[in-house]
């Protein structure tokens, strides 16, 4: 494997292209095992506002800190610009990082991002010195506006959060990749099984963020390991340059020179 192939996000190099969310694990101990088994270097942590108070969520936070990986706090569950900005401020205080995964939910059923609010919040947070990782759709114009607002990483969805449906809109995602070849793009949400993750990396996406598919597996640590292999395979395949699909069969053995058995 190419050891020089490092993922760089806001100037920080990451050893793995598998990012893990930390919600809904059976226990923090199992979460820790999964993070180790997945070899992940970055975890997202959702901050409930009430846990951010003095010492309130310290037990859980200290377990996360002890993992020795980078932490990307997120604003999960926020529905408005104001709420997301407030949560980002708290996250900076609790985790001491300018990084924030900006998530603003536009609709509760699909948990679809509200890209309008996202752009506003990204601009505000960018001006305040945050390094923003916006959870967005595959929409090209939304992506453009987010980059204009100062984002240097985008996190498009594969499919709705927790749905496990993989890459829903392949055409749109491929177009996004082609349009912004230099921007790190991380598929966030909707990955259900390792083959989805491999596919994302094969298409040239820079990383995947997985939560439910690992945390709700019967054996989360083992599933994290499976994802790590898929991500590595997908990345290698991308770097190796996959063949183009064709409409017609093309024999892999040339016919010229084949023995004529009659």
């Amino acid at each position: 494997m190419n050891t020089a192939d490092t993922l760089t996000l806001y100037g920080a190099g990451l050893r793995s292209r598998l990012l893990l969310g930390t919600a809904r694990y059976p226990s923090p101990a199992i979460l820790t095992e999964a993070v180790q088994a997945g070899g992940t270097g970055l975890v997202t942590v959702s901050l409930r506002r009430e846990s951010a108070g003095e010492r309130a969520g310290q037990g859980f936070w200290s377990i996360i800190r002890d993992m020795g990986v980078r932490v990307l706090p997120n604003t999960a569950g926020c529905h408005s610009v104001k709420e997301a900005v407030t949560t980002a401020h708290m996250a900076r205080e609790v985790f001491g990082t300018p990084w924030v995964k900006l998530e603003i939910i536009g609709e509760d059923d699909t948990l679809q991002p509200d890209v309008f609010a996202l752009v506003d919040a990204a601009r505000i947070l960018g001006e305040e010195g945050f390094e923003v990782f916006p959870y967005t759709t595959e929409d090209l114009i939304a992506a453009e506006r987010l980059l204009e607002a100062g984002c240097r990483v985008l996190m498009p969805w594969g499919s709705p959060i927790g749905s496990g449906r993989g890459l829903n809109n392949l055409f749109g995602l491929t177009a996004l990749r082609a349009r912004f070849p230099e921007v790190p793009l991380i598929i966030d949400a909707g990955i259900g099984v390792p083959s989805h993750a491999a596919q994302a990396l094969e298409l040239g996406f820079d990383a995947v963020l997985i939560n439910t598919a690992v945390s709700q597996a019967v054996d989360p640590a083992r599933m994290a390991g499976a994802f790590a292999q898929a991500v590595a395979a997908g990345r290698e395949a991308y770097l190796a340059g996959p063949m183009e699909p064709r409409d017609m069969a093309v024999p892999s053995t040339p016919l010229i020179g084949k023995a004529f058995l009659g």
Partner: protein
Amino acid sequence: MRATVVGAGVAGLACAVELAERGLTVEVLERTRRLGSGCCSWYAGGMLAPWCELESAEPLIATLGAESLAWWRAKFPGTVLAGSLVIAHGRDSGELKHFARRTERFEWLEGEAIAALEPDLAGRFEKALYFREEGHLDPRAALAALAERLTSLGGRIRFGAVAPHESERREAGVLIDCTGLAARDVLTDLRGVKGEMLVVRLSDISLSRPVRVLHPRVPVYIVPRGDGHYMIGATMIESDQATRISARSMLELLGAAYALHPAFGEAEIVEIGTGVRPAFPDNLPKLRRRGDTLYVNGLFRHGFLVAPALARRTADWLLEGREAPEVMQ
């Protein structure tokens, strides 16, 4: 032989009763002035559901839980053995399959069989999981019954006390600390997981057993408490502050109950409660010795489910020197 148990939650009282039944003179010290005030046991669901809990817990919880179920039936006549029902709304039916994949000792029920068990749910759900062997109890009645049993065995509870006086330390005998999160200065890997619950009253419908309503984001259970009372619980928030219930949590709890049956929309809200469960990183309970004190802690959301099994192991360890590696490592 004497024993002093600190903390009159379910862990403390179960230990006290178990030790008293094995012939020890037991005193329980409780920092508050009244049984149940300020302990998370007071806000428990009281579901004795070892196999349902496998959905998110390690197999050890099912083992300890099955053992405890028998203990409760023997010690507390209020223990109801009517099974538990697990349902999901049509669009969340994948959650039922997921639940079934991770649990055991259930049967699949369809519409008519669901109606036979819970007539008021007739026609509302197409499929359910029925855990026939599970039970439930009213945690507050159960705590009171344990306190009474302790008294009848010659033990006592001293309220407003946190530790034996220095002068009494010698007579206090073995010291067993069951103070939950208050022990975190010694058990530094303990953390708090906040839970919020409601008690409502309604007479339009009745349920005979705990019903778990599965949902990808907001799983909720409803436990009948008799006399038209139902406990609706419980959130799980990584926080050790039991100061308040948020509007969102209340919406979620009530929304799930209302979706189970619209009659819950007319229910009277009798109580709003919050507590903080003590948990170790693996969310499993532990017995630990520190100096001359034995700690029984980390019962997490499984207090009533596992306390008797832990009490037995505590007594086995103290009286027979028999260790229980499954809860001591």
